[in-house]
């Protein structure tokens, strides 16, 4: 049976060392670079015309812009639009990485927790920085819900702090786990087809897992979009906490 984990292996393409650290250019880096190049060139080509009546490419670019912008505006109000570049970059990067991962033989960058944790950590630090810069120590009110009896307040504050600190964990685990699980399932069902084909009379059963793999592929495309959406949505919500800690 083909190894379902094999697709996640990282191997250096250009070995590099920096102060004793291994900073090789790996297949993962290559796909990140590919994503960035694809996205950048798509938007540059799409927006080259800048016509009042958009063409096909320009419509795609405008729809994606409007999609993220309305998501951000709904959860943070106009005050959050300052951080639109960050949110839009996150969404497009994750979405294109997920979608590239759906192409057979391609590497899925977001199936590694290192990558998703770095992205979630970036959001977490941004939220902390904005929160303290805008509200100073009043930002800590986020941990003190109103209307709690003074006796159990310390306990509640502790729980709120743990809840806050667990955000980047669940934020990153969700994206990584979805991509990992989906790709392993696809590979396992694909493996079943191959195994059944080599199993004599049981080969007659091989269309069944093939059908399943086809259905799963459709589901995975949905998940790839949905997880990018969920990651961005949560980023918007956390930003909202930083901008309006009272609510």
């Amino acid at each position, binding site marked *: 049976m083909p190894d379902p984990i094999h697709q996640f292996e990282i191997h250096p393409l250009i070995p590099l060392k920096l102060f004793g650290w291994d900073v090789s250019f790996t297949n993962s880096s290559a796909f990140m670079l590919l994503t960035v190049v694809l996205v950048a060139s798509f938007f540059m080509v799409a927006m080259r015309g800048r016509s009042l009546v958009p063409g096909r490419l320009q419509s795609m670019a405008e729809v994606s812009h409007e999609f993220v912008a309305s998501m951000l505006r709904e959860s943070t109000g106009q005050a959050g639009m300052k951080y639109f570049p960050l949110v839009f970059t996150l969404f497009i990067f994750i979405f294109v990485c997920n979608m590239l991962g759906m192409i057979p033989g391609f590497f899925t960058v977001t199936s590694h927790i290192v990558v998703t944790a770095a992205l979630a950590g970036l959001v977490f630090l941004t939220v902390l920085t904005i929160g303290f810069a805008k509200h100073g120590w009043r930002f800590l009110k986020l941990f003190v819900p109103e209307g709690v009896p003074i006796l159990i307040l310390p306990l509640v504050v502790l*729980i709120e702090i743990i809840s806050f*600190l*667990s955000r980047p*964990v669940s934020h990153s*685990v*969700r994206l990584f786990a979805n991509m990992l699980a989906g790709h392993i399932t696809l590979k396992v069902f694909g493996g079943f087809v191959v195994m059944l084909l080599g199993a004599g009379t049981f080969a007659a059963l091989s269309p069944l897992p093939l059908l399943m793999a086809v259905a799963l592929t459709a589901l995975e495309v949905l*998940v790839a979009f949905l997880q990018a959406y969920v990651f961005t949505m949560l980023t918007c919500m956390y930003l909202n906490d930083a901008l309006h800690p009272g609510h």
Partner: protein
Amino acid sequence: MPDPADDRRPGKRPMSAKDAAAFEHRVSDLGERLDKVKAQRQAGADAELDAEMRGRGMAYGMRMAAELVGAVIVGGFIGIGLDWLIGTKPWLFLLFFVLGFAAGVLNVMRAYERMQKEIAARTGGRLGPTVRDDED
């Protein structure tokens, strides 16, 4: 569609009672057919929405699991860290593990509230082809 009644449209000349009845019949027949097509379209849209929400169900489940487990892990690690700093092994770990669980439940409750809002916004309160809102 070739229709023998085609040259007897209303308004061209006064209709006999029979023609009027036939016309009424055709109008109501057309109305019925339109209703049928509309119902089919609605059912198709409902089924599509239902399938989409099912696909989302898995994502929602994963999200809940991540919310709960994430908080427990963070609580546990804070406890281990404080134990290591103060030397109270293993008491703070036990305390923060339980607090982490509480935080996880809090996270799940909050995520659930958000989810309900999202689902309501997406489906307009209709969760499937069989569950309809009375107020419609």
